[in-house]
């Protein structure tokens, strides 16, 4: 069967913040660039980001990138690579100002500078006191960002393939990446995108959990494709749970609410964060707040008939301030909790929000993996940025507003590195003979299988397993059980059946293909989490509690290392954390407390 081949200098999978930022670099360098997206670019999930993007502009008060770096290393619980963190924090001002030049309508101070708000974990002078570092455009930061970058791409002649789904990464025998196979949803046709550089910017995979703030599109396709092509996944045990998802719905209440003065209370109306984080209180980093909330609930101080949520109180704030600075919150309360937050507190629970791990990359955006003794050998022709990638700047826990920064900085550097490699002469390599065989076999198996597993039921089984066995608090026996359960679900996920066999707009097929990606991520998460026998950042185990020898349950002697999960044989190896920044002194290990 002959499959059409489209040839580009670069193919970018994903048109969210990271993909659009990469595309600007490539197109403006005059390279022929294709961007594929499952949805129209400005429908990408980056649109949902409300809180803002971090940059130590110092517009509202004194700030410095080294302070931002310190907060990021500390937030990461020292699992973040300090070279990558320095790179990102130092570049923050540049990429935010660039965005301003692209037309991003940031909130302004009275004297016309970018307005900056306080945010959880942002501190001045190496952890001393909260600082205002987050730049926002009302509650539409992500949306405004995508529009500005989309327009810039249109001007630069980036070619968009909208409602196209990339299916598999193409790698040749020597390990070079040569593009992707993809499906046009409107026709069901499979096409090969043959490229000199391939960039993944496919976003997160939060839909592996039952309770998630992520939109349905976050199915981890980039991770699934990388895994099937033999590329390991890094630090997949680390998932940030957002402290404040609306109980029952998952819908997010932005951290900006606490930034503007919102207070968490238990059933006796106590401001319990004062006990857990005396300095930062309600502005402590996310996992600290999630853990405190879960402890309150576990110890019987939760609210409601089942005592299974806590309250987020903003009734003491000026209603005009709420409506001006946090306009969406009032409506979310009404719609998903039936609560008027100006008068009553909102019911909230910790909810899966962000994936710290992903496709392993260097801070230049180049994908790296162990090869012949080198733990960070470059995979030629392959780059990644944004939530699907692991640079690793978020380590064991991401600071709020650092992911919009991640996608700007690493989207840009992935684009720059691709430009550099192409200009240095990287050519189109010959496509392997069996280039699309695996993709075609997967599709044909789905179309022809009888008596296979139902997609919806399989997804639900996976989500329940992840929620119950690898949630915000983890237990040794549950994790062990979780591993065998997820391997059972994997069998079903490899044996899916769809009833609809049509070519055009076959959403059943698309969802089945997404499921095959989700399961790769779920499996990597469960097995990596079971294996890491310490608590660190967002990975908190009951059997690794706080002790004088291991404060917060963290064990640096054994576990200060990145997990690399190889999906082919479900094996794990580890690589060292890079503790050496590019130009400043390392942030020395210490106990993470707020």
């Amino acid at each position, binding site marked *: 069967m002959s499959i059409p081949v489209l040839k580009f200098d670069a193919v970018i999978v994903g048109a969210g913040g990271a993909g659009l930022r990469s595309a600007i670099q490539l197109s403006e360098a005059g390279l022929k660039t294709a961007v594929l997206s499952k949805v129209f670019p400005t429908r990408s999930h980056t*649109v949902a980001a409300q809180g803002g993007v971090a940059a130590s502009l110092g517009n509202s008060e004194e700030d410095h990138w080294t302070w931002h770096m310190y907060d990021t290393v500390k937030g990461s619980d020292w699992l973040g690579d300090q070279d990558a963190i320095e790179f990102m924090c130092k570049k923050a001002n540049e990429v935010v100002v660039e965005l301003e030049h692209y037309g991003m309508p940031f909130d302004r101070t009275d004297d016309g500078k970018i307005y900056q708000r306080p945010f959880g974990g942002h501190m001045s002078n190496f952890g001393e006191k909260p600082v205002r570092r987050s730049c926002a455009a009302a509650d539409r930061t992500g949306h405004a960002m995508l529009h500005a970058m989309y327009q810039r791409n249109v001007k630069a002649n980036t070619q968009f393939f909208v409602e196209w789904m990339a299916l598999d990464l193409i790698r040749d025998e020597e390990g070079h990446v040569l593009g992707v196979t993809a499906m046009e949803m409107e026709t069901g046709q499979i096409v090969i995108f043959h490229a000199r550089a391939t960039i993944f910017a496919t976003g997160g995979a939060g839909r592996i959990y039952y309770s998630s703030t992520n939109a349905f599109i976050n199915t981890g396709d980039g991770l699934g494709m990388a895994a099937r092509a033999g590329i390991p996944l890094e630090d997949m045990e680390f998932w940030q749970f957002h402290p404040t998802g609306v109980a029952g719905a998952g819908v997010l209440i932005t951290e900006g609410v606490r930034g503007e003065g919102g207070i968490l209370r238990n059933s006796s109306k106590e401001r319990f964060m004062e006990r857990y984080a005396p300095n930062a209180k309600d502005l402590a980093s996310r996992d600290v707040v999630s853990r405190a909330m879960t402890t309150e609930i576990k110890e019987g101080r939760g609210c409601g008939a089942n005592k299974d949520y806590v309250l987020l109180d903003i009734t003491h704030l000026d209603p005009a301030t709420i409506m001006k600075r946090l306009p969406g919150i009032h409506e979310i309360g009404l719609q998903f909790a039936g609560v008027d937050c100006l008068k009553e507190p909102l019911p909230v629970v910790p909810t899966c929000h962000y994936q710290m791990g992903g496709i392993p990359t260097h801070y230049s955006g180049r994908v790296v993996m162990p090869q012949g003794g080198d733990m960070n050998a470059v995979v030629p022709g392959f780059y990644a940025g944004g939530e699907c990638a692991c640079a690793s700047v978020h380590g064991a826990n991401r600071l709020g507003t650092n992911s919009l920064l991640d996608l700007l900085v690493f989207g840009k550097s992935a684009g720059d590195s691709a430009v550099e490699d192409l200009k240095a002469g990287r050519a189109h390599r010959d496509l392997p003979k069996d280039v699309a065989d695996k993709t075609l076999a997967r599709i044909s198996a789905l179309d022809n299988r009888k008596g296979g597993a139902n997609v919806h039921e399989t997804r639900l089984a996976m989500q329940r397993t992840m929620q119950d066995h690898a949630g915000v608090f983890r237990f040794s026996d549950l994790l062990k059980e979780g591993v065998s359960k997820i391997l059972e679900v994997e069998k079903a996920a490899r044996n899916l059946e769809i009833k609809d066999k049509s070519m055009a707009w076959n959403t059943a097929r698309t969802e089945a293909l997404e499921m095959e990606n989700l399961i790769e991520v779920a499996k990597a998460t469960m097995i990596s989490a079971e294996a890491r026998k310490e608590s660190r950042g967002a990975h908190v185990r009951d059997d690794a509690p706080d002790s004088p020898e291991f404060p917060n349950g963290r064990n640096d002697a054994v576990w200060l290392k990145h997990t690399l999960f190889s999906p082919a044989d479900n094996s794990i190896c580890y690589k060292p954390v890079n503790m050496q920044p590019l130009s400043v002194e390392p942030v020395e290990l210490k106990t993470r407390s707020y």
Partner: protein
Amino acid sequence: MERADYERLRWRCIRRALLELDITLTRFLDGGEFEKLNGDEKQAFVELADMEDHDLWDLLTGKAEIDDPRLAHIVALIRKS
């Protein structure tokens, strides 16, 4: 509505940028509410589904209003569903 047209519409409703809209629109389609609409109403729904996520969400939460009575009628139906 032709099958392909419906499935295209469905994809554009079940894969939004905002989880809030995923939940609300999927419920409207898969819960059978869309099926009950007449041809003109279905067309109006398609127009709404084409909107930017935040703009549509503002309508569905009553934060913004829309002049076109055809669209306002569908907004009211979705809000009730």
